[in-house]
């Protein structure tokens, strides 16, 4: 994993995130922590039904759990260097289910200096244990000018 040093960073450098084991318990805990008790995350009977053309076949993890893991990866990387997590945009590509293990990762895409600060753009993605990308997006970190 690359160090969060603005001058040394270059496109293609990587940031490693933590593995996260998804279980019925982890999803239930996320319900309590987020107050999002949508039956998508709680009710297997409800999830036997179809959603348009999609059938999930059982409860799924909150998409925002991916978001929280990516955010955790970014802050854990940036904060010790005095950098600030300023933006995160994500989209969900595949459902995540109990039994899956997911892991976020980042790749430095570009650096930008503006009138008053310095910025790093990071491509982010979350993959499951089969190497499938379940969430993807882009983040922006600020490295305040010295």
């Amino acid at each position, binding site marked *: 994993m690359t160090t969060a040093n603005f001058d040394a960073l270059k496109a293609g450098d990587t940031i490693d995130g*933590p593995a*996260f084991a998804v279980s019925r318990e*982890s999803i239930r*805990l*996320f*319900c*309590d*922590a*987020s*107050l*999002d*008790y*949508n*039956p*998508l995350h709680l009710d297997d009977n*409800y999830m036997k039904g179809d*959603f*348009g*053309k999609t059938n999930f076949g059982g409860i799924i993890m*909150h*998409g*925002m*759990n991916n*978001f*929280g*893991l990516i*955010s*955790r990866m970014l*802050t*854990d990387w940036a*904060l010790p260097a*005095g950098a*600030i*997590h*300023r*933006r*995160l*945009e*994500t*989209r*969900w590509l595949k459902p995540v289910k109990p039994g899956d293990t997911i892991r976020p990762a980042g790749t430095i895409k570009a650096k930008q200096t503006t009138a008053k600060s310095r910025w790093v753009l990071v491509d982010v993605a979350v993959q499951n244990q089969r190497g499938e990308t379940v969430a993807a*997006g882009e983040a922006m970190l600020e490295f305040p000018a010295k």
Partner: protein
Amino acid sequence: MAQAESSAATPFETDFWKDAKLRKVWDDIVPGEPRKTLPYQLTQDAIALYCRAVGETNPLYLDEAAAKAGPYGGLIAPPAIHILLMFACTPADDWMRSPGTVNAGQSWSYNIPARPGDTITLQARALDKFIKRERLFVVHDNVFFNQHGDVICSGRGQTIRPM
């Protein structure tokens, strides 16, 4: 348990079916119209519970002495605490709670951290709605403020509405 509580007198209703009939369906949602919101006092317990759910261990969120010596001079919440604030700051009849609401993606910008003890308010609305591949989408926009009127974070997202 250390469950987050709304500052409203009534406890948080975890059965999202209960008020389902009161909520707007896609047809009722008017882009531009503000959503009803509630002020919410963020507690250290709620922050700790969120941290546990996503495995956050940074002392800035959890260790008062370490946080006091750190860059923010005290405990802060992780940036993504808006995941909780979205539901904490909206009433039971808010359409974001409609069973079957599917999150299609979000983007958030962060200004200053939320802190334990903050009284947080939300300004929120639907911005747009559209139909794509037989699915009903709504674009929403949200800005969270602290008790000083400072922006904590702002975000927009898309949900697919239940049919």
